[in-house]
């Protein structure tokens, strides 16, 4: 695709002047950005910087106090903040996916692995048992879970497998935008690497857009096209990921980048 065609492309998500307050305290404020189809945006910052609050507002889990979150739905541009709850939930089932840091928050622990994946399909209207099971087995394979584990419950899985199952459950319905809250957070480093590779491949093959909240700069360098740095609820710097990490402009980003331990 030519550069001109890319520039004319419509953003998938446009955020304007978004703010959320907890009483007198700022959760996040003055946040604005455009996310284009196929782009991965990383949001970094220390604990309490507002990155999770922002992600919750974008995904419709929290109601922002101010601002617009315009999503390019199949029916045209819609402000998801002003949307009826039912319409927002439909988006969350179809066009969006949300990968929680703790897989237990995103999985149904009492239901088999296949059931976890199939349930999302049934929520969007799939009814044919054989097809649902085939799709479930196919997706388990894509996240490298063996077919003979399809009837096991997630509680019998390791942490890394649970996280991959959560990703399969989320992506089976072919969403266009994935929200991820510290997706590699609780995993040990060798499992992290595999998951990073898996996510990169899926983003590339499915043309997904993603917003990834993390405090791990190495993860965003490998996954994100663009980076937003948050501090005290505000975005202090944003730009191309390797530019923000290699030539940080803001005082806080310089401190953050220079504080990373070298291995």
């Amino acid at each position, binding site marked *: 695709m030519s*550069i001109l065609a890319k520039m004319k492309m419509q953003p998938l998500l446009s955020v304007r002047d978004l703010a959320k307050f907890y009483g007198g305290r700022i959760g996040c404020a003055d946040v604005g950005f455009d996310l284009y189809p196929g782009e991965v945006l990383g949001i970094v910052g220390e604990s309490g910087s507002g990155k999770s609050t922002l992600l919750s507002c974008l995904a419709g889990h929290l109601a922002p106090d101010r601002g617009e979150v315009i999503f390019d739905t199949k029916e045209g541009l819609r402000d998801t903040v002003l949307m009826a709850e039912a319409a927002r939930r439909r988006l969350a089932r179809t066009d969006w996916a949300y990968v929680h840091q703790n897989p237990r928050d995103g999985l149904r622990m009492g239901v088999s692995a296949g059931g976890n994946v199939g349930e999302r399909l049934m929520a969007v209207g799939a009814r044919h048992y054989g097809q649902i099971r085939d799709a479930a087995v196919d997706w388990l394979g894509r996240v490298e879970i063996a077919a003979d584990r399809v009837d096991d419950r997630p509680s019998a899985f390791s942490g890394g497998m649970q996280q991959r199952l959560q990703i399969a459950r989320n992506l089976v319905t072919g969403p266009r935008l994935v929200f991820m809250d510290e997706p590699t957070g609780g995993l040990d*480093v*060798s499992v992290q690497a595999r998951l990073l590779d898996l996510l*990169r491949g899926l983003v*590339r093959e499915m043309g997904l857009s993603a917003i990834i909240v993390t405090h791990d700069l190495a993860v965003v360098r490998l996954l994100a096209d663009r980076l937003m740095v948050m501090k005290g609820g505000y975005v202090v710097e944003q730009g191309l990921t390797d*530019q923000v*990490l290699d030539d940080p402009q803001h005082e806080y980003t310089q401190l953050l980048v220079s504080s990373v331990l070298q291995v």
Partner: protein
Amino acid sequence: MIRSTNIPSFWSPRFCRCDVITISNLSKSFTLHNQGAAVIPVMTGANLGVAPGECLGLVGASGSGKSTLMRMIWGNYLAASGSIMVGDVDVAKAAPREIITLRRGTLGYVSQFLRVVPRVPTMDVVAEPLLTLGVPAEEARARAMALLAQLNIPERLWSLSPTTFSGGEQQRVNIARGFVHPYPALLLDEPTASLDLVNREVVLTLIEAAKARGAAIIGIFHDEQARARLCDRLVDVTQFTPKVA
């Protein structure tokens, strides 16, 4: 080997004598907020141009700004002022997504360091730039393998991650990544630095082939013989270093 069908015709030297990379009045400074907001000017008034099929060598002592200039063209260092045209994109002012598109198909970069997702097989590391461009997986892998073979990376290593490789092997994997797609513009940061004579020759031949197909190349070569063989012109970056008042 490498097919050159992906190059738009206007890049071809036969149709266009204009420069692929044009740098005008470029300057750069670093502001170190954690050291009393010290402002360090490192470059001022840089101008240069590279035509299709031409290789330009950057020279100057260590610390004179060769790598800084190269990183500004790649876009991971921000320009303070001036312009960096690569094709029709001004890297100094472009939005992140324009730079990403530029890096995908037009601008290649062989840095001195290999940065990859751990545990990904070497073959896939090399094929990745093609997969991102939408080349079918089988063809991408075939081209990656051909290049790895040409660069004398033993076949038994192709399924292993390059993170455990020797310095010279990692450098050749990096070079394979940079040459797997026929980028119209290429940045090479000491591509022959830690290679033995045989592999150095392979890399020099690859660079000559890239020139012959019309790539515009900017390189840093400490290897003087390589520089003499490849570079059509040299630019001493010391002339862009701000004079201390």
